[in-house]
């Protein structure tokens, strides 16, 4: 027992152990976490971002009658996806000016995609004539599955990062003896102390949110991360289906009859759903075996105004249009999962709640960012030779620059690419994404080649300039300049322009403050004087 007892240098209290755990759990996947936090934060406005990235698509001054739109798109899908065994469409709502639909590809040859998808214009029913782009869905997908790697790997990586985050949060709280006092403490312009205070304030203020968002993030993909109970409990596909029905509104297709019968009126089905849930509160229409005698259609409830994503739908016979079942509740555990899922996505939010989500999530991003920077600020003072730091220090320092300042540059470059790439370019949507990664890689090269402080300042200014000029680029390349959007009360485009300027200002302020700072934060004498206190208080680092 004695040999094991002295495995840590000196007898350490739980607070010190937790401080080390907090530091390393936070650092190891910190760069991935930062990227997940920032792309996740902007994804609260994913639909608005998608609208901005498809400027050819007209703004919907008011939501069209969902029943009429559903019928129009169902007819179109009958042609575009003829012979499919299932299709699904998301109806336009207050945040969406197009109909996103996907369908199972009827005859599947090896190498062919299993699903086809397209965006449709609710007014005409035709595929939208818009530039090829993934829109806001790129940041959304990157947030939990990254890119250039199999989807499942990406999701596991995201899960590992979230688990590290959860451990960092819990250990961070245990480390803190004066969590309340520290929240009201801010020591401006005091080098390391200021970073620490900023990190504390950001963490403590948003603590319930950060904890919630991390745990619910794990819940969104829990069936992937923890499949063991499911594997032990269910032996047959029928049993597994019982579970699936608790989680999603996609009805399971039975066998097709092979007998051709046209689909009954989808508009009538959606009308019944509108009567039940409200005029603009229908979410999706999902059909299985459309055009076959065995067809069935599910119309799901919209996501607005209910804090759960548990399936709620009306199921219809697809040939007679008769209502078969209404499903509006699931088991207690499934409902819990539905609420946790919905809390993570925040789709139930009205505009104010959505902004609150965005702001607190932005603070979470800043929490991760300040934590990463603190690792270097704290260690720089203890370096034997501050001009030639060791490899690990340099690595963290450079990765910090590229993953924080560089990500801002790359994300803005993605939006620039959306406006600049020629419409006729083959695989245009992919090239927007390539542009994002190429620019991100360039910021890493830049961070490696330049002195650290210059790299920070230059990249922050680059991000600021790109953000500031994005509305100008938008004016030059689209028919929707700022003054036009303002006079049309087109708040998505107005908001996007203002947001770009606000973020440009933020990056400019950060650049100026970084430039003013002397190397190592404060003067050497100042630090030497302070050092004993820092060590004595045993802070997180």
């Amino acid at each position, binding site marked *: 027992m004695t040999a094991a007892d002295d495995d840590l240098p000196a007898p350490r209290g739980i607070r010190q152990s*937790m401080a080390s755990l907090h530091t390393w759990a936070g650092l190891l996947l910190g760069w991935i976490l930062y990227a997940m936090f920032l792309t996740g934060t902007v994804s609260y406005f994913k639909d608005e971002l998608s609208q901005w990235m498809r400027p050819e698509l007209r703004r919907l001054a008011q939501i069209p009658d969902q029943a009429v739109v559903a019928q129009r798109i169902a007819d179109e899908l009958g042609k575009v996806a003829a012979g499919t065994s299932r299709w699904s469409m998301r109806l336009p709502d207050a945040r969406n000016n197009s109909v996103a639909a996907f369908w199972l590809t009827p005859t599947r040859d090896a190498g062919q995609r299993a699903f086809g998808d397209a965006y449709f214009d609710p007014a005409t029913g035709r595929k939208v004539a818009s530039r090829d782009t993934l829109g806001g869905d790129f940041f959304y997908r990157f947030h939990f599955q990254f890119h250039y790697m199999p989807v499942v790997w990406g999701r596991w990586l995201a899960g590992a990062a979230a*688990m590290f985050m959860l451990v960092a949060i819990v250990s961070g709280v245990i480390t803190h003896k004066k969590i309340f006092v520290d929240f009201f403490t801010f020591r401006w312009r005091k080098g390391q102390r200021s970073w620490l205070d900023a990190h504390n304030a950001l963490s403590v203020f948003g603590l319930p949110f950060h904890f919630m968002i991390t745990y619910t993030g794990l819940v969104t993909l829990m069936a992937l991360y923890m499949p063991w*109970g*499911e594997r032990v*409990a269910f032996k047959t596909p029928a049993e597994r289906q019982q*579970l699936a029905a608790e989680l999603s509104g996609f009805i399971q297709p039975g066998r097709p009859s092979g007998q051709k019968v046209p689909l009954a009126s989808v508009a009538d089905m959606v009308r019944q759903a509108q009567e039940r849930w409200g005029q603009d509160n229908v979410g999706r229409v999902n059909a299985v075996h459309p055009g076959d005698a065995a067809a069935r259609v599910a119309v799901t409830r919209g996501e607005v105004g209910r804090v759960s994503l548990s399936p709620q739908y009306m199921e219809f016979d697809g040939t007679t249009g008769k209502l078969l079942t209404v499903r509006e509740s699931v*088991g207690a555990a499934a409902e*819990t*999962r539905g609420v946790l899922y919905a809390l993570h996505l925040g789709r139930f939010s009205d505009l104010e709640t959505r902004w609150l989500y965005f702001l607190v999530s932005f603070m979470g991003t800043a929490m991760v960012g300040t934590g990463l920077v603190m690792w270097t600020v704290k260690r720089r003072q203890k370096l034997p030779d501050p001009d030639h730091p060791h490899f690990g220090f340099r690595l963290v320092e450079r990765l910090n620059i590229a993953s924080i300042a560089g990500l801002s540059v790359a994300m803005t470059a993605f939006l620039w690419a959306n406006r600049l790439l020629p419409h006729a370019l083959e695989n245009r949507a992919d090239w927007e994404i390539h542009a994002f990664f190429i620019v991100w890689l360039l910021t890493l090269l830049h961070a490696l080649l330049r002195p650290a402080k210059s790299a920070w300042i230059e990249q922050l200014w680059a991000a600021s300039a790109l953000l500031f000029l994005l509305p100008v680029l938008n004016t030059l390349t689209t028919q929707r300049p700022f003054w036009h959007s303002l006079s049309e009360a087109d708040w998505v485009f107005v908001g996007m322009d203002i947001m770009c300027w606000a973020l440009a200002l933020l990056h400019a302020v950060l650049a100026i403050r970084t430039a003013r700072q002397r190397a190592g934060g404060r003067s050497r004498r100042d630090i030497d004087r302070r050092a004993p206190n820092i060590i004595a208080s045993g802070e997180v680092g």
Partner: protein
Amino acid sequence: MNTLIHRARSTGPLISRIVAALFGGYALAALGSVAVLALPTSKPQAVLIGMLASFAIYAGAVIWVFAVRSALKAWAGLIIVGAPLSLAAWSVA
């Protein structure tokens, strides 16, 4: 040679804890997610309870592993909690 032994002595327990946290923690969470099937509730609900709770178990296990005084105690704790969970999991498998 002595320094080598010393290094092994000082990093060995740390590596042991890291393994206990990463894999021991996951194993405990997985065991827990199967053990809940013994609860008197319908299977789909029990499966979901297990999934929902598993991340709390995992996080708790990691904190435990680094909070206790020695790597040995860390493993002992995992095994003591894991034993009844294994029994419960074995009863439903």
